[in-house]
């Protein structure tokens, strides 16, 4: 058995996974009120519009919460491993789940973290968060996340 992987053809999330494979972190934004939304739902939680688009966000944030799993129950995972929930610097309030590349003892809520997509199969890239000073060189093969700063308007999430 292999580790659980996202279904790249599930249209609810396909843009997100396609983004990661191109080195970009993409989430949903409401076309009507401009709020960012994650996870993606059919309706905007702020204005209930059904009209959305996908936008890039910068993969920087602070650790909101975490756990270290000591008893793994999924194939492909070996204990101990951490799961982190990171609140993005912008758009404010949006949080992304991910794996963690760092010392478990360094997991401290409020600390800055930076994400990069990590290739786990030929097709699938997942988000991995690490401390900025130990982040891999952005020039490394698949390490870099594009940092377009098109997203200047910081919408309050939800």
């Amino acid at each position, binding site marked *: 058995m292999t580790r659980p992987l996202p279904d790249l053809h599930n249209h609810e*999330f396909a843009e997100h996974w396609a983004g990661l494979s191109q080195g970009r972190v993409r989430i949903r934004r409401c076309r009507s009120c401009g709020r960012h939304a994650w996870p993606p739902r059919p309706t905007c939680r702020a204005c209930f519009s059904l009209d959305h688009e996908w936008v890039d966000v910068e993969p920087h944030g602070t650790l909101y919460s975490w756990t270290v799993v000591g008893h793994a129950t999924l194939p492909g995972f070996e204990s101990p491993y951490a*799961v982190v929930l990171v609140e993005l610097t912008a758009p404010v309030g949006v949080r992304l789940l991910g794996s963690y590349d760092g010392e478990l003892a360094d997991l401290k809520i409020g600390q800055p973290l930076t994400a990069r997509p990590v290739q786990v199969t030929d097709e699938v890239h997942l988000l991995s968060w690490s401390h900025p000073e130990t982040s891999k060189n952005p020039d490394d093969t698949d390490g870099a996340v594009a940092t377009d700063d098109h997203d200047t308007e910081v919408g309050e999430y939800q």
Partner: protein
Amino acid sequence: MASDNAIIRGIGQTDYSRQSGRTTTLLAVQAALAAAVDAGLDVRDLDGVVGFPHSVAAEDLVSNLGLRALRFSSTVAMGGASSVAAVGQAALAVESGRADHVLVVRARNGNSGGRIHQRPSQLPAQHFRTQLEHPYGWNTAAQRYAMMARRYDYEHGLDRQVLAEIALAARSHANRNPAAMMHERELTMEKYLAGRMIADPYTLYDCCLETDGACAVIVSRHAGPAPSVRVLAVAEGRPETPDDLTNRPDLLRIGLEPAAREVWECTGLGPTDMDAAMIYDCFTFEVLHQLEAAGFAPDGLGSELVASGGIRLGGQLPVNTHGGLLSEGHLSGLNHVLEAVRQLRADAPGRQVEGARHIAVTGWGDLGDGSMTVLAGQGGAR
């Protein structure tokens, strides 16, 4: 919902074990028969059933109990918050006249029938779970709620000694309850601290048991031979995003908060009127969290109540005098309702809360759904 006429007329249960060797249908039948005897009713006269998803259905019970005229049935899907919410539906049914005697039954082979992570998930928004969470190795209740506990620790401080006290108090109560799975197993601080890590901060003894067995409750308008226990109010509530934990604006605001507010408002009673509380204890931290959400302690200060010995028998607010999910057994919290009824009937030898008149029971499920009821015995509010 305030309830004027609903009474818990009968309770019944099977043995709680790791390996029942019976089907869930048989377990449900045994618990239902015991509850009917306790209620002084012919089981065939039960005319309402409230059950759980993917478990014994009303149709199974019609055939196996010989129900003559089932007029009302429903299924509640709030995870562990379902048991208390189900009592609420039963109360609604008898008060509206849709049924006279409603059976709430929970039967499971929670241990022998496949471990928790192997069961089909009943959580809402499965696509978020399978697509966004499982790929990162975030797939069990312990792991999800650990994220809340870690956040609580950051905001308010969470001492390991407090989690330990919740586990130890539950075990000391189970040691007084012959029906508890852990009746004869003592838990010491040393043993607690040696428990292996499950999902930080939860170690082995912070986690509930997995149990085979069944519980049943019969709700009616009139009392039977046993002392009557009145359902004063039942409410359910949901957090802001019940389909997702990750982007909930405040991870620590849970569905029990509005449910408790409604119950206190409906009954005119408050936390200090409760002689005991049965708190849904899937993990130790959830007890602390719900004590605060239900108003038994101010936000962030539940640790004081726990650390002072307040949740033990003889303390300010005895909690889970049967041992709870942590040490009696995991019957989805319907066993908490049974314990409240026993206490209010003054029928909990060896662990009786003397003079108990009002007991609050909470439920917690899925991604923070909540439910709560207040039950009253002799001398309690009407």
